[in-house]
């Protein structure tokens, strides 16, 4: 205690940056002749990870509060499908509102059950994941629903503002607002306190139940936005959207330095974790590995990263 070594949590928070640099250097060397470092490829990585990064922002709120959300992938698909269906019958802004509202509604149902029926979020969101995915399939009839509103596609998909892709603008916006709220407001402080020691939060006058509800609504809102970004980029909505994001986003957030057990979280870390996961997919594809091997290697790297960043030496 008298020696001023940096806090263990601080050191662990830095690991994601080291991992990011290592993986980047590895691919830069291995794939120097296959265009990994080209501006186009690097831009691609950023664009492809945009929805996952938005989801990661929401998940930091949830994990830091000591809860978990397994349903956000399904909520992405349902939000995109609802938005696309609404846009077919009316103007696009209504579709956007419907998409966001869908994501938030899923989050609200999750949160209400967790906070007021007092069931563990793991089980609640595991169940709603199935329900929501089923509704997405039923609504869309397993078909892809095209999105044709040009303005919508410009704003949420391929458009640019002052040369910056709109996907990047949305992602940066989500990151900045998320970081500000999480780090600099009482709400953020109360999330951390609740995830850390719910009893302490309660006797300090923090409304723990309401807070638990709110973080799941935040996650649902992020799922809604991610669904709109997918629909804009792909110009279609499909029940498979967001399916593969579940593991990737959870891994990105944890590797980034957010505690699965609550009480600790970082949004910059989640961004780097998300970019790292995107870079990993991209590099493994460029190396010509089959999907099976990509899955195996990604899984192992996540395991290694989590082991290094989360292992408690006192346990």
């Amino acid at each position, binding site marked *: 205690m008298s020696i001023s070594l940096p806090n263990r949590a601080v050191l662990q928070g830095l690991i994601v940056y080291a991992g990011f640099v290592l993986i980047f250097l590895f691919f830069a060397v291995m794939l120097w002749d296959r265009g990994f470092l080209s501006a186009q490829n690097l831009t691609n990585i950023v664009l492809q990870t945009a929805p996952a990064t938005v989801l990661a922002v929401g998940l930091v709120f949830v994990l830091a509060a000591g809860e978990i959300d397994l349903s956000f992938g399904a909520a992405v698909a349902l939000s995109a499908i609802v938005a696309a269906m609404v846009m077919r019958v009316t103007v696009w802004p209504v579709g956007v509102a419907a998409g966001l509202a869908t994501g938030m509604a899923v989050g609200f149902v999750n949160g209400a059950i967790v906070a007021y029926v007092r069931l563990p979020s793991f089980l609640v969101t595991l169940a709603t994941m199935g329900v929501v995915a089923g509704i997405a399939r039923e609504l869309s009839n397993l078909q892809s629903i095209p999105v044709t509103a040009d303005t919508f596609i410009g704003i949420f998909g391929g458009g640019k503002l002052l040369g910056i892709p709109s996907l990047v603008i949305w992602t940066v916006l989500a990151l900045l607002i998320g970081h500000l709220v999480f780090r600099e407001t009482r709400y953020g402080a109360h999330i951390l306190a609740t995830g*850390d020691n719910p009893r302490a939060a309660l006797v300090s006058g923090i409304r723990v139940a309401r807070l638990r509800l709110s973080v799941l609504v935040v996650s649902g809102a992020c799922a809604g936005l991610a669904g709109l970004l997918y629909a804009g980029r792909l110009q279609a909505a499909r029940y498979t959207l967001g399916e593969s994001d579940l593991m990737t986003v959870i891994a990105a957030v944890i590797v980034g330095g957010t505690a699965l057990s609550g009480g600790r979280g970082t949004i910059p870390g989640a961004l780097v974790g998300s970019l790292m996961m995107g870079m990993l997919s991209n590099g493994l594809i460029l190396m010509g590995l089959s999907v099976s091997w990509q899955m195996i290697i990604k899984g192992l790297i996540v395991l290694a990263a989590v082991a290094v960043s989360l292992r408690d030496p006192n346990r």
Partner: protein
Amino acid sequence: MAPYPEGHAMTPVLQLKNIRKSFGGVTAIQDFSLDIHAGEVVALVGDNGAGKSTLIKMISGVYTPTSGDMLLDGQPADFPDASVARERGIEVVYQDLALADQQTVYMNLFLGREPVKGPLRLLDRKRMIAETDTLVKELDVRIPSASATIRDLSGGQRQGVAIARATHWAKKIILLDEPTAALGVAETARVEATIETLKARNLAIFIISHSLDQVFRLSDRICVLRRGQQIGIRETSQTDKNEIVSMITGVSK
């Protein structure tokens, strides 16, 4: 002789009058009466299950008495929940301390009552750190810094943080539930020294302790509970351990 300045016709900070609490058919506390004055330390002693925690929980607003009156500064005190009791100036140092271990000392001191600044209502960390530094210095709680993380502190330092938090917010009275049960000799001495400085701040202090040595070192009066019954109140300077022990156990000396 009174333990508070003679001739000072002060209203007691806290008055408990004929307090009774029952849970269903079980009476946890029956007919308990006590006045606590500013600048006074009253110790509550009794065996396990005597009702000490129940009494603390009624004063802090967690439980409502079944019957009887509670007065704070002479005003009726009916607390619908603990946050109202806190607003009225009653703070509790819980046995488990109620600290968020992965957060900083200053965030714990302001937990649930963080100051904000500007139109965006952002956390005023500068103010929290400054006030923490001042308080820690005044109470002589020795911690590395206001920005240290709780889990990096020793048991005594954590206890110091919990007491500092209560002191910062308490306007009237601090309830301490076994403040040194988990501490070593040196750390206990430090925490006792901290409690002494609270007296000087003119707070009323109500302390539960199993250590009679500690009770005799710290308190002005001792109140004994046995199986929910108030056995008696003694001036600490007018009694001895034998009397208190026989009051606690019910075995005459």
